[in-house]
């Protein structure tokens, strides 16, 4: 039978405390409150809070300006920035902003480090989640490129629910083949054809309205200003004439439905 001392040595390095932990342990203050580990009450200075708010607002302006600069650069100088530039700038600014909120408004800077650790672990888990999912779905074509493509762009189609019910109380469906986007076009065209009584007229009217809506939000969907994986594209926001001197198809006011 070993003695305690021998055991004490035998298990040294193992964490179990055999002898009272007298040196580091004060029974009157078992959790070491007197040692300054407590981080509970932090009173932020008003100046700091205001400064942080101002910086946040400045960064908000900066991130919008960066996005607008891109359009401006393109429309005036025809400089097309690589797509990632805008993304990188916007996300960097967002990261700085969120860091400010975390550090000052949420007081992580002054708080118990465990809370920071919790948050960092969360971000780590998020990074894993995002990283591995992208690793898979972004690289389906590791061996064969045809595995990455879609058989029918926009989806196989489906039995679309029309929102009505028949007499038996069942949901009425209509069959969509292919993308719901193409289906929406088709439905609208058919509606116009019913209203105008003629398909050719409907097509013209459709094209006219399409020009209005396309132009108004600036997404032309074709031409040199289209985004792809590598290039960003300027756009104008909801107000077309902000960047564009002469909006087309804007003058005739009452063009739309209501005939």
């Amino acid at each position: 039978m070993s003695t305690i001392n021998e055991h004490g040595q035998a298990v040294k390095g193992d964490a179990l405390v055999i002898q009272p932990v007298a040196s580091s342990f004060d029974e009157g203050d078992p959790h070491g409150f007197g040692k300054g580990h407590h981080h509970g009450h932090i009173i932020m200075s008003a100046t700091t809070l205001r400064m942080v708010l101002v910086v946040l607002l400045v960064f908000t302006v900066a991130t919008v300006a960066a996005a607008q600069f891109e359009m401006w650069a393109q429309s005036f100088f025809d400089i097309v920035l690589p797509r990632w530039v805008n993304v990188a700038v916007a996300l960097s600014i967002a990261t700085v902003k969120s860091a400010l909120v975390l550090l000052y408004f949420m007081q992580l800077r002054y708080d118990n480090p465990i809370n920071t650790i919790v948050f960092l672990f969360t971000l780590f888990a998020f990074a894993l989640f995002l990283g591995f999912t992208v690793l898979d779905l972004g690289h389906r074509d590791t061996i064969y490129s045809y595995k990455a493509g879609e058989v029918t762009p926009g989806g196989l189609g489906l039995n679309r629910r029309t929102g009505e019910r028949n007499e038996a109380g069942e949901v009425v469906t209509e069959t969509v083949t292919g993308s719901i986007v193409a289906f929406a076009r088709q439905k609208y065209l058919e509606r116009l054809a019913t209203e105008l009584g003629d398909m050719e007229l409907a097509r013209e009217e459709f094209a006219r309205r399409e020009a209005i809506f396309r132009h108004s939000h600036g997404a032309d969907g074709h031409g040199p200003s289209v985004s792809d994986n590598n290039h960003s594209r300027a756009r104008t926001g909801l107000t077309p004439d902000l960047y564009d001197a002469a909006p087309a198809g804007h003058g005739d006011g009452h063009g739309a439905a209501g005939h």
Partner: protein
Amino acid sequence: MTTDFFSNLTVADAAHEYIFHREGMGAVATANGVEATDSIFMFIFWISTVVFVALMGAMVYWTFKYRRRPGTIAQASPSHNTILELAWSIVPLGFFVYMFFEGFHGYISRLVIPPDAIQLQLVGRKWSWSVTYPNGAETPVQQKVGASNVPVFYVPEDKPVMFRMVSADVMHAFWVPDFRTKMDVLPNRYTAYWFKPERLDVSSTGTLEDGTRYRDHFVFCAEYCGDMHSEMAAIIRVVPEAHYLATITKWNDAVDPVELGRRQWAAKCASCHTVDGGANTGPTWKGLFGRGHSFTDGSSYTPEQMSNPEFFANYIRESIVDPGKRVVAGYPNQMPPMGGQLTEAQINGIIEYIKTLK
């Protein structure tokens, strides 16, 4: 039979035979890749067995040897041992690295398709498989497996065969246990599956009418896909290449519409519609021509209407292209629109085939 078989084998082979036993075929077909997969599996199996026996042996022996005796306590022994603990962390890791690389090699060889592979199109749908051959043929051959008739796909022996697979509705998985590999069949996205069937010189599961030897392999759907998931089987029949070529040419010869329709039924409709009056997910086709119908939306067709060939043809066509429009009362609205998967000739064939089912 198995006892004879075992007595002629070493222990390792006997274990292998038992683990992968297929009725009438012994352990394995010798299709390409099977041997590699089996050998890594058996490697893991034997390592695991040794580790397991050692661990359990120690556990049982110590449990007995150090059983509690009154008035004694446990003897002193180290409560940890860094070298031992490191050893039993690192040594298994070495084995794991080996397993990973072996598995990786096998996996990649299962994915990279030989350039000379015969390319077949495979569509999985609730709840059947269909294969289109390079010449456009589809199999008319059926065999009863369990409760259902399943299609039989012919492939040539000893030639690489590739399926380009897609699903028409939900996810399925194409699994041929004899080939030791499976692949999910996804809707709206292509996946691939290839294998090189064995040479037919070991044994065969049967002989065709013309005396040709063949061997059958089951195909199962391994991804849960609904009611008849477990009936979603098929058979891959390995035949000599000459026979394969002759067969698919024969299938593709001009056939009369009724036969064409019957084949479409066998390939795409049989999982839900019977032709013998039996109940299933969808209405039976027996006597459909001339039978009155009432629909879930309250409307109905009279027997007179349904006896009119033109009216009937339009109704059947509508039911194929837009099945949700008129659903026969008492049946679920479950059928996918089949318009994109059938040619006009095939739809016509189905209509003619139904007319013959009195």
